[in-house]
Structure formats: structure tokens, C-alpha cells
């Protein structure tokens, strides 16, 4: 027996060391649904279920990083408490095999079990622990149609003892019969106010000095995706902490981490295409020596240079898009033509087309649209 003892002792120690190196996204996942940022409407509805102990089937949908998974995990934790959590909640996501066989066996078996009567929880708190189980199907939009169809009847048959929560990004990928069985909750992208309060809160807990400029850079680069902005913040703080001596985080760090193309590169491309730069900060020495539309070869050279820098094509296109669409002097017609080019390029890139050819194509079409 003594031979085994050191091992059993060392195991919990290792576990305990974990939180330091945990990603902040996991560390600061909301513990209760009241901690969930922004989604007031959904939270208000769900809070009632805590008292009434009745819950419909649910379908959470919305863009990434808006708190869908966090909400359902927090809710089930509040409902069942840490002890019953394991026996009452089944979480399946895209990394698990979720073909039709799994739906028929694993999900059905779990759904069929009648939940045991509630035991007293170990941490002394009382939990509502309603008489049903929750099955969370995370990233449900990557389930096959067949697997979804197999769920239909299961959801109804065991509705008395099991609740389903489907979590997905695109509600259109969920087949109608499933969607109509659930009450839908839309998670909207986070507004900048709640993102900034949340980020500031995390930063102060982690003792990371952040300025307002950094927070706004985080918000700009993450487009309402809280997870992304927290990851960026953590990466930036890692980088700044680990240099010797520790430096403060500056907004350009965030942009580099987020893979944003430097504005000088985009401005240079735009000038080559014949876009007049009007914003005051863009007027550096290079662009002031006359804005004139250049020919094919100049454009090709610029594009080749950008590709060599290794920037991502979709990022370049989206930034060029922002620049042109918000441009004050271009006519509506020109902008429309450019927008068409951007849209087609985006589709082509999603299909896996060659990046260089498509950047060049966009560049040439924008050039053509602007010179006529």
C-alpha cells in the first residue's frame, strides 16, 4: 500500500497547479447566469427557470464568442450543483463522434435514464435540482441531417425527464422539425460597452495594466467576439510580461496578434489602385507625392509584395473593403462595383482559390471601377 501512496498524493497537486496556466477564457467563464455579459433578454428568461423548475428545449444561436456555451453551462451548474452535474448533464460537441449511431445509442440511453432523487450537496448550498437531465449538443450545426432527424422523436419521447439544449452558430443549418421543438434564443454580438467592462474586470484581476486605447483596439479587432478579445488580451499580456523588463501593452501589439494588416500596407495598395486617401493620418510622405492611378504592372508588383509579406488574403480584402466603402468622395456606383468584386473574391477564397490571383483580381477590378 505504501508503494501507491506517493502517487495518489501527487495527483491532486498536479491538478491544483493548473489554474495559473489555464486560458483566461476558461478561467473567467461565467459561474452563474447573472455573470453573463450583455445578453439581458436571454438571462432574464432563464432566471425564471431557476425558480419555476421548468425548462423548455432550447436552441441557442449567434456568432462565436457571445456566451452561448457559457450560459448553458452556468445554468446547468446553478440548477444541479457540482455533485449532480456529472450525472445530470451530458455535453457533446463536434470533437465527439456524433453520427447517427451515437444519437441512437449514447444520447438515447442517457435520455432514457430516470434521474435519481436529489442527494444533499457537499458544499452545503441547496440547488433547485429539478427532476430532469440536460443534454447539451454544442456546435449542433455540424451534426449531419440524418443525426438531427434521429433526434426528433427522442426529444419528444423523453421530454418528461430530459431537456435538450442545442448550441449553434447558424440556425439555418438546424433542420426545421428540431428548431420548431425548441424555444430559440438569439445571442447578439456584444456591444462595446459590455466588452470593455468585462475586459477591464479581467485585466484588473490579472494585474495587467491596460489603457483605454488598448481596450478599444481589442474591441475593434474582435468584432463583438468576447472570447477572441480575451484571448488576444491574454496573448498580449504574455508577450509583454515575458520581455525583460516587462513592457506595457500597446495597441499595435494587439493588431499584430490579431493578424490585422498594418494600415500603411493597405493605404499603399489603395494608392496604387487610385484611391485618394483623405484621412489626415494616412497622409505620410509617400502618398503625398501625387495620387495617380498606375498601370497593370505597378499593381501586380504591389500585390506580389503583399503576398510575400504573408498577410492573409481575406484580411486584406476586408480591410480594403472598409477603406473603400467608407471613403467620402467615391460615387455610389463605384463603391457598388468594388463591393461586387469583394463579394466574389470572398466566395472564391472560401472555395480555396489561389490568394494571389484573387487579390490581383480584386485590385484590378477596383482599379477599373475607379478609373471609369
Amino acid at each position, binding site marked *: 500500500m505504501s508503494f501507491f501512496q506517493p502517487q495518489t498524493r501527487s495527483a491532486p497537486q498536479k491538478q491544483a497547479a493548473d489554474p495559473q496556466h489555464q486560458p483566461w477564457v476558461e478561467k473567467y467563464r461565467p459561474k452563474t447566469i447573472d455573470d453573463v455579459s450583455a445578453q439581458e433578454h436571454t438571462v432574464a428568461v432563464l432566471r425564471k427557470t431557476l425558480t419555476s423548475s421548468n425548462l423548455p428545449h432550447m436552441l441557442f444561436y449567434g456568432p462565436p*464568442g457571445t456566451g452561448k456555451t457559457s450560459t448553458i453551462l452556468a445554468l446547468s451548474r446553478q440548477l444541479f450543483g457540482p455533485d449532480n452535474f456529472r450525472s445530470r448533464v451530458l455535453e457533446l460537441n463536434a470533437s*465527439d463522434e456524433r453520427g447517427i449511431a451515437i444519437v441512437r445509442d449514447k444520447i438515447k440511453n442517457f435520455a432514457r435514464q430516470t434521474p435519481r432523487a436529489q442527494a444533499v450537496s457537499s458544499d452545503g448550498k441547496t440547488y433547485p435540482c429539478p427532476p430532469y437531465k440536460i443534454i447539451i449538443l454544442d456546435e449542433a450545426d455540424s451534426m449531419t441531417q440524418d443525426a438531427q432527424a434521429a433526434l426528433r422523436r427522442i426529444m419528444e419521447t423523453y421530454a418528461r425527464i430530459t431537456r435538450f439544449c442545442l448550441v449553434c452558430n447558424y440556425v439555418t443549418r438546424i433542420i426545421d422539425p428540431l428548431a420548431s421543438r425548441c424555444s430559440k434564443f438569439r445571442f447578439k454580438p456584444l456591444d462595446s460597452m459590455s466588452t470593455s467592462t468585462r475586459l477591464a474586470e479581467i485585466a484588473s484581476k490579472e494585474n495587467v495594466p491596460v489603457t483605454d486605447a488598448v481596450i478599444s483596439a481589442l474591441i475593434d479587432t474582435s468584432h463583438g467576439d468576447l472570447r477572441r478579445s480575451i484571448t488576444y488580451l491574454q496573448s498580449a499580456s504574455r508577450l509583454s510580461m*515575458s520581455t525583460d523588463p516587462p513592457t506595457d501593452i500597446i495597441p499595435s501589439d494587439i493588431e499584430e496578434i*490579431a493578424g490585422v494588416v498594418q494600415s500603411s500596407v493597405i493605404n499603399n495598395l489603395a494608392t496604387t489602385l487610385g484611391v485618394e486617401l483623405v484621412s489626415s493620418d494616412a497622409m505620410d510622405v509617400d502618398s503625398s507625392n501625387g495620387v495617380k492611378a498606375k498601370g497593370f504592372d505597378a499593381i501586380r508588383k504591389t500585390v506580389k509584395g503583399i503576398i510575400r509579406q504573408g498577410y492573409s488574403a481575406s484580411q486584406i480584402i476586408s480591410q480594403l473593403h472598409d477603406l473603400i466603402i467608407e471613403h467620402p468622395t467615391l460615387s455610389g456606383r463605384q463603391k457598388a462595383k468594388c463591393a461586387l468584386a469583394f463579394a466574389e473574391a470572398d466566395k472564391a*477564397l472560401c472555395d480555396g482559390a*489561389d490568394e494571389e*490571383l484573387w487579390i490581383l483580381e480584386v485590385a484590378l477590378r477596383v482599379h477599373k471601377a475607379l478609373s471609369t
Partner: protein
Amino acid sequence: MSLWVDKHRPRVLDDLHYHAGLSARLRALAASGDFPHMLFYGPSGAGKKTRIACTLRELFGKGVEKLKIDQRVFLTPSKRKLDVNIVQSNFHIEITPSEAGNYDRVVIQELLKEIAQTQQVDLSAKQRFKVVIINEADSLTRDAQAALRRTMEKYMSNMRIILCANSTSRLIAPIKSRCLLVRVAAPDETKTIEVLRYVGKKEGFDVPDKIAHEIAEDSNGNLRKAILVLEALKMQSTDLDKPLTIAKPDWETYCHKVADMIVQEQSPQRVMDVRAKLYELLSHCIPPTVVLKTIADRVVDQVDESLKADIMHWAAIYETRMRVGNKKIFHLEAWVVKVMSLYKHFFYDIDMSGFDD
């Protein structure tokens, strides 16, 4: 006797020649003990793999250089067997899931879970986690990428993932938001020359300015290519001071020939000739995208300014169709015919605006 590319590949972060800022960051990250998932992206030959190897070395010490190659068999849901080659050391494991084609999801799910659920047993190891390197991450299918999402978060304590890709366009947003993005830009000309000089010095000769410039220009930022060319030239003639021409690969001259044929004459007969040549290229396993790009590049050099934009436009369109479609030669041919008709109409001054779509 290994190639110079491998022989003089930097092994530690300090030996890297360019992107000093990036190296400092990588070193700092490796030292902090709080290593994130990472995504290296950049054009080929820019040094992504080298940087990954150096980072691993920084993380785990010399042990990572002891590699062994394993072949693993995975079973698809339809009971088909997949053989996947795995390169691994005690601390990391390297896979190229795109080898498994459409079934890369199975490989990702099984392999990653297996690694994630085992802890590092070697108590003397510097880090508690293992590293999984996924090459060619941009050719992962969407299913496989979706399978990565939650795994990356759940098993963070046991495993870190390093993705290596040419571009981030084809990676889904959830993956990108979970990784620290590292852009590895291609070296510019002066840096390339610097490296060439360094390699020359190690091999015991001086690289003359002129030839270094030529190689750097020819390589177009691809350092691997530059060093290979240097070695080839050195093998050809020991004296690099003499005027030398960098031999273009066969397929490139062949592509140029095809381009010239297109510009010289536009007739059904010519289309058939070009077709035969294209088949020849494809049967030698030259990627159709490369063929199309090389020919298009050559063609636009020889035609009127007003035609250039259109030719590139159609090249882009047909290249996309080639990816989506199945039979590559159809789209290559269609593009050739399109270019010929554009050219002919331009000559006879026929208004083509009706055919713009």
C-alpha cells in the same frame, strides 16, 4: 551528406537570421511556461517549420530532435483503414492530416484525444504538456476544424497545438480566435543575400554580389529555393565569378512555351496543340494552379495593356472553378480558349462588352 538547406538549417532561435523581433517573442513565450496554442502562417520557404522546430527546442531542450517515424492505422466509420505517417519525439508529435484526405476528421479526433488524455510521464520533462504540430492546416476539412474547436479548450492542460498554414483564409474563425497568430513573412532581398553569404561562408567560399542578387531575385522570397539554387550552381561550376545563368526548371520553360504559342496564333488547331502540352504538364504532376499562374504571367507580359486586366480576371475565375470542379484540364482549356478569343477580338476591334460575364 545532406542538402545545404537541411545542413545549415538553424536549430535554435538565436541562429535565425531574420525576424529578430519574432524570435525574441517566441523565446519569451517558451520561457514563460504559459505557452498558448499557436498558428504560424506565411508563404512557403519563409521559415515557418524552422521556427516551429526552434521553438520546440527552446521549450523542451535537445530531446525533441530525437525523432521517430511511426505509421498509425485509423479506422473510418465505414471500416476503411487509413494509414497515416506520424513523426514524433518524446515531447511532440507531428501530423499532416491532409494525407488522410476526406477522413482527416477521424485522425484529428482519435489522435488528439489519445494524446490529450495521457499525461506527460517523464518527470524530468521541462513542460507538463505535449505539443501537437499540424501541418498544412489550411487544407483541413471543415469537419476536422470543427472537431478541433472544443478539444483545444478542453485539453489545454495536457496539450498545445501548433498549426502551420500558408494562409489563414481557409481556417474557420473559431480556430483563429483560439490561437496566437504568428505571421512569418518571406525574407526580403537583402536578408536573402545575407543568408546566402552565411551558407557560402560555412561551405568555405564567397558568394559574389552579382550572383547573390540574381538568386535572391529569382527566388522571390522563397529561401529554400534560393539555397537550393545556390547549391546547384556551385555544383555546376566551382567558380561562381563567371557569368552564370540560373537554370529555370523544365516545367517553367515549358509553360512559357505554351504561353508563347497562345499569343502567336489563335485557331482551333492551336488549341489542340496547347491541350496536348497542358496534358503533358499535368501528367508530370505540376499543380494546375501553378501551370495556370505561370502561363498567365507570361501571357500578360506580351499583350496590350488593355487586355491584361481581363486575362487575369479570367485566370482568377477559372482557377476557382478548377478548385471546385473535378476535371482540371477542362478549366485550363476553357481559359486558353477565352484568352485566345479575347486576343482575337481585340485585334479585329470587336466590342466584347456583351460577353463580360
